């Protein structure tokens, strides 16, 4: 039976982890490789890096991070943030990323998704959808949540599936950082609309939220950042909790 995945996400800026695990025995809390290794040793099913480097001149730092991490972590590695073109995707994959997540570029030009999934295979193309509720619908945001495109998130999800995305990473902008749980309504709607796996993101504050993302939101995988970073829960504890709730996980 296919297991639901737990994906810890690390924010990386100028090659350093911004919010990370705060363990006393950590040699270097800002080292993305060390943090990723802790997660993979702890049973993370995948690792996600979100590059939030703002300036263009430091953009290349992520490639070194990916290179080093992929030599130490032997679980899938997804990298997103600032991915603009098929060339960017190619570079990240060559450095050792297994999947690349595309956000703004996919909204601006769906052809990036079409071309890259043809070239590298759908399995490594994740489209990240940042959505915010407006009345009875959800709108797609780009540029790290700063720009409202007014595009309907559900229609966009369908379009991305048709363009060749292998997975959809759905983040609720309303919930992100709030720790009150995923936007289950949004997740469930998108999951039932598409035939590709969905990843729930944005808003996790406790382990029941992970359960809800899978049971109610029908997500194949759940992504979380802060609950793992600040040591509130370990990946292992999260998995044991999901297991106790009857959710199939890899233990």
């Amino acid at each position: 039976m296919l297991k639901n995945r737990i994906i810890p996400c690390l924010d990386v800026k100028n090659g350093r982890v911004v919010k990370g695990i705060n363990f006393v025995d950590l040699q270097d809390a800002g080292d993305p490789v060390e943090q990723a290794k802790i997660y993979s040793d702890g049973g993370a099913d995948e690792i996600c890096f979100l590059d939030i480097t703002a300036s263009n001149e430091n953009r290349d730092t992520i490639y070194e991070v990916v290179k080093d991490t992929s030599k130490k972590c032997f679980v899938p590695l997804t990298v997103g943030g600032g991915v603009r073109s098929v060339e960017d995707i190619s570079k990240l994959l060559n450095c050792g990323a297994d999947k690349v997540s595309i956000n703004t570029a996919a909204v601006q030009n769906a052809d990036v998704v079409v071309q890259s999934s043809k070239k590298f295979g759908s399995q490594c193309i994740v489209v990240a959808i940042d959505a915010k509720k407006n009345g009875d619908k959800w709108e797609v945001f780009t540029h790290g949540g700063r720009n409202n495109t007014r595009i309907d998130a559900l229609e966009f999800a369908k379009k991305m599936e048709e363009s060749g995305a292998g997975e959809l990473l759905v983040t609720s902008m309303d919930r992100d950082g709030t720790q009150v749980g995923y936007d289950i309504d949004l997740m469930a709607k998108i999951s039932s609309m598409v035939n590709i796996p969905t990843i729930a993101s944005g808003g996790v504050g406790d382990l029941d939220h992970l359960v809800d993302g899978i049971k109610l939101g029908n997500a194949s995988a759940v992504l979380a950042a802060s609950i793992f970073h600040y040591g509130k829960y370990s990946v292992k504890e999260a998995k044991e909790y999901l297991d106790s709730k009857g959710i199939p996980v890899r233990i």
Partner: protein
Amino acid sequence: MNVTIVDYNSGNISSVINSFKEVAKDKVNIAVTSDLTTIKASDKVVLPGQGSFKSCIDGLKNINGLIDTLNEFALESKKPLLGICVGLQMFADIGYEENETKGLGWISGKVSKIDNQGGKFKLPHIGWNEINIKKESKIFKNIENKSHMYFVHSYEFVPEDKSVISATTDYSTNVVCAAEKQNIFGTQFHPEKSDKIGLKIIDNFINL
């Protein structure tokens, strides 16, 4: 010992390279190339594969003499060869992804889309799934039945002779996830992405 990972523009093979280098340490030479002489002189060959069946076969064809060299390595010299993901699928006679495409024909069978039961099962089949070991295999030495492996695929290898199946996984149907015929080994899952247990399979192959 020399192990060659065949580099034929089959997509992203960095993870395969990293995992083999991690396991090999300094004991084994890992080459990454499409050079025919190097392949011929190798003790073992790894045939990775990402993307579609057709794009991988086209990739092999685009390198002059590569298919002949692989045929010779696997069928005449009978040296160990490991196909991963589409690398395994290409052992078949024929594949149906994109267009109908002729495979290497090393293990009779076809590659067709997983029956997702009208949308009940999402495709691609992405994530960790248990393997059901069907027969004793040297690459499964010290690997427990029901171990978790990482999968990413929408197509499955359906061999004619079921005795070549060394493991299956349960996703909609019993999907063949490892096949073996004498010196030819293949896994549908990605040992290079399957954590320590996956590295153990790579270690087993290197130590054959």
